[in-house]
């Protein structure tokens, strides 16, 4: 319940935060703290320095970026959920942000925090991945853009380097021809997904032009169900594509489910998510 002792600095700017990270190997960024602090309270994580970026209001925004909506990394889940720009142009992100944890968590947790945490059981990483988003990372040398396909590299591992900070996420504007769905099955409402599936489909004249399927808690990172996507692109029916959703995944066995059951759930939820997306 009580973390091990650590030092604490308040970042005055993203550059300041990055500089502090550069100076201290054992430092971590503190945003909402709802991924980091629980680990520290169980003494599973023991950073020697926390750099508090929670007051960098300049990184909390939802803006129209032309072809995309730009979301500042420090935007809280509640604000992502409520943002009119997202509700209109990228509703799957707004919707999914409303499923994270519970209201108290959504009042503090940030999109940047959850993406940089890299937990394959989290919801937003899957949606970001399914949308082929871009993530903007700032370091001592300046900014770089990482495509979501390259962002999640392992369990609790991302492309953000030790002296870098995720500053923005860019999600595509979905037009009227795009249908979407995020179906999350969890043991209780506030729990992580046992398995969840994100489906984003582009429809043209009644057929599927593009299908993206993201999977939560089916491997070491959020995954794309590429076999299913390819089948759909090749004209397969929803049932046929859904049967392939679990291909190439490596789910684990834990308190909520065995790997075998997760494989089954992925196919069932995949079918439902595709059907819902197509019908939206």
């Amino acid at each position, binding site marked *: 319940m009580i973390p*091990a002792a650590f030092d604490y600095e308040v970042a005055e700017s993203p550059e300041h935060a990055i500089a502090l990270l550069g100076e201290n190997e054992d430092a971590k960024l503190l945003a909402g703290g709802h991924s980091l602090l629980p680990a520290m309270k169980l003494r599973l994580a023991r950073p020697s320095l926390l750099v508090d970026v929670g007051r960098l209001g300049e990184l909390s925004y939802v803006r129209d970026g032309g072809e995309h909506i730009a979301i500042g990394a420090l935007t809280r889940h509640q604000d992502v959920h409520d943002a009119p720009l997202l509700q209109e142009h990228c509703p799957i992100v707004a919707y999914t942000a409303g499923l994270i944890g519970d209201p108290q968590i959504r009042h503090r947790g940030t999109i940047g925090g959850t993406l940089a945490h890299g937990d394959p059981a989290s919801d937003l990483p899957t949606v970001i991945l399914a949308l082929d988003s871009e993530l903007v990372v700032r370091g001592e040398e300046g900014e770089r853009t990482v495509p979501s396909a390259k962002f999640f590299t392992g369990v609790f591992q991302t492309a953000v380097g030790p002296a870098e900070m995720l500053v923005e996420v860019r999600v595509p504007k979905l037009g009227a021809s795009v249908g979407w769905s995020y179906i999350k*099955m969890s043991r209780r409402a506030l*729990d992580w997904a046992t398995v969840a599936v994100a489906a984003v489909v582009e429809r043209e004249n009644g057929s599927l032009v593009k299908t993206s399927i993201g999977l939560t808690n089916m491997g070491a990172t959020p995954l794309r169900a590429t076999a299913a996507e390819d089948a759909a692109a090749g004209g397969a029916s929803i049932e046929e594509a859904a049967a392939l959703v679990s291909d190439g995944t490596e789910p684990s066995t834990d308190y909520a489910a*065995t790997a075998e*059951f997760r494989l089954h759930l992925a196919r*069932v939820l995949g079918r439902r998510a595709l059907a819902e997306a197509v019908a939206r």
Partner: protein
Amino acid sequence: MAITESIQTVVGTSVKRREDASLLRGRGTFVDNLTLPGTVYMAIVRCPYPHARIVTMNLDVARAAEGVVAAFSGADLAEDWKGSLPCAWPVTEDIKMPPHFPLATDEARFQGDGVAVVIASSRALAKDAAELVEIDYEPLEATADVEKALEDGAPLVHSDLGTNECYVWKLETDDFQAALDAADVVVTRRYFQPRLIPNAIEPRGVLAQVGPSDEVTIWSATQVPHILRFALQIVLGYPESKIRVIAPDVGGGFGSKLDVYAEEALAIALAKRLGRPVKWTEERAENYVATIHGRDTVHHLTFGATKDGKITAVKSEATCAMGAYLQLVTPGIPLLGAWIYSGPYEIPNYSVTFTGVFTHTTPTDAYRGAGRPEATYVLERTMDALAAELGMDPLELRRKNFVKEFPHTMASGLTIDSGDYDASLDRLLELLDLDSIRSEQEALRAGGGAQQIGVGYSTYNEMCGLAPSRILGAIRYAVGGWDSATIRFQPLGSVQVVTGTSPHGQGHETTFAQIVADQLGVDLGDVEVLHGDTAVSQLGMDTYGSRSLTVGGVAIWHASQKIVDKARKIVAHQLEVSEDDLEFANGSFSVVGSPDRAMDVKAVAFQAHSAHNLPDGMEPGLEATATYDPPNFSWPAGAHAAVIEVDIETGDTRLLRYVAVDDVGTPVNPMIIDGQIHGGITQGVAAALWEEGVYDEDANLLSTTMTTYLVPSAAELPSFETARTETPSPTNPLGVKGVGETGTIASAPAVINAVVDALSHLGVTDIQMPATPERVWRAIEEARQ
């Protein structure tokens, strides 16, 4: 003898709780809110292995850490204990009762067994220093499986015992086997009821101080301040008269705070050694290993019946996990259900056997229902199995076997004082609208979609109001089951009631005041109820087993009668009439036929105090104590139904409706009764669908936090539909029965019966609790083959 007539005014009404005033404002006095000047904080070092020899221990680094006042190993403190942490129920003569001291010395026997203690100036520094205790462990083999623990070659929890078998207890009617053999139909089923972790939202805590002449004061989050005082003398040697135990506001217990724990003894021993108050508060992860668990039993339940559904014999054989040590009531928990294996049914041949087994796990002990949910689960599940075997409607089978006439002496020897089981079931069916459920079920089945529904029942009774002391003596429980009340009429008319019960959410301050207000004819606001501090409440047997109203409340009733009787004598004397000429109503004694000749009971109180004109030989004051030993248990009963939706593709379940009809005798406060029922139902539903304390095959606890042990929130549950029938108990003058545990006793089988019903068309006949989505999916898959 003149009879007290009082017009019922507040008993039976839903008086709002006076406890709310402080709790709603955040002014509760929970133990962690308390400190004393100079308080130091205790942190326990716990063995991370399920079983290990403690080879070496080095406390030097810990002792030198910042803020550390002292650190001790189990061996360092061995001289402080005059006796073991007590087990109050040696259920058989040859029961194995290994010693159990607050810290292990050379062998730790479960993951979480305390092996050392560090005391520092703050909670944080104590925790930091606890990590610096260097221990060399030799891990040993361990088992958490209650059946495997009995096999040859199983790792032993207490090697000097040569076995993991703690006891075998049996109750059987004459010629039982012959009766079972003669049955037309015999049905046997096996059930495993997993370990449950009580999870009262307040973790345990203590604050202890020892004064210069060895006066001990301990605040503890306990349900049992009186029992704790008694037990602490056994463990520490201080005379009870010098021990003061205070249970301040306690944040829920459900049996998990009905115990005598290592930390309570440790805090006192350390307070004595250090000359400073010692405080300890459990972390939740610590609670999961250091506070008792419930259930963890394997049952084989057999019915013998005629082919038209009359059950002639019931046999239960259960293997029950004790855990690594015997806590206060551990071996007796199954016995609290020993007379419930016929439930509300009339079954002439009866056989119940319990085998208590040590495993390398946290000790088990009382958890809401304690023995009775286990019995009711196997009974109500097997009723459905028998009905299926006989091709009978499960409700018809139940009705056919209900006890119809009361009092009813069961084959097992105890007498059910009252009830009307058909009335409960009738009322349930009125509320349930079974026809609609069945048509909806048919339509969904015909539609072949993923969502299906089912309905399941649980008709139950239980025995509570613990307990008649003679029976406790006969079954070898170490102490009695009475309770005590002292009522003091203050000279200016306010009334102080001291009860031996110890509420922790049940609302006794409100409900007991209702009883006294009615009996004495005073306003509710004039009555104050005190509890939980052994300096104030000298006599009591505390709160558990749905006993507080049926024993404690009845003691209050009796004390009230003594007050009224004495008051009547004073009035008769002062008005110069005979006692028979007085009637007492609404707080006033008046002469029959001359109502203007009257005395208010508050005026009598002042008269008793000033003693200017009392009958010869009468002692001044208007105070009375009654200690009441119930002549029988109380027997609440009822009929519950659960309607559940199952997604047969994902295995996910949703409880759509839960309908509960309960007979708890004459109601004192219907609002509080409903609250107890809601809470009780929720814990049984949670056991059926979510909760499971899991150990791996090496006895490592896998359910270590609230993220993996699933206590449901409001989002998981519906609102409940409750109703009552009433057969007043003839056993006590209030007509009351208990209610604290009935919801938990009834609900788990109702839910599982509903899940099985939802899947019956797919060939599913059983499912292991909790019915997780995966278990539901696998049950469907297996039935398909």
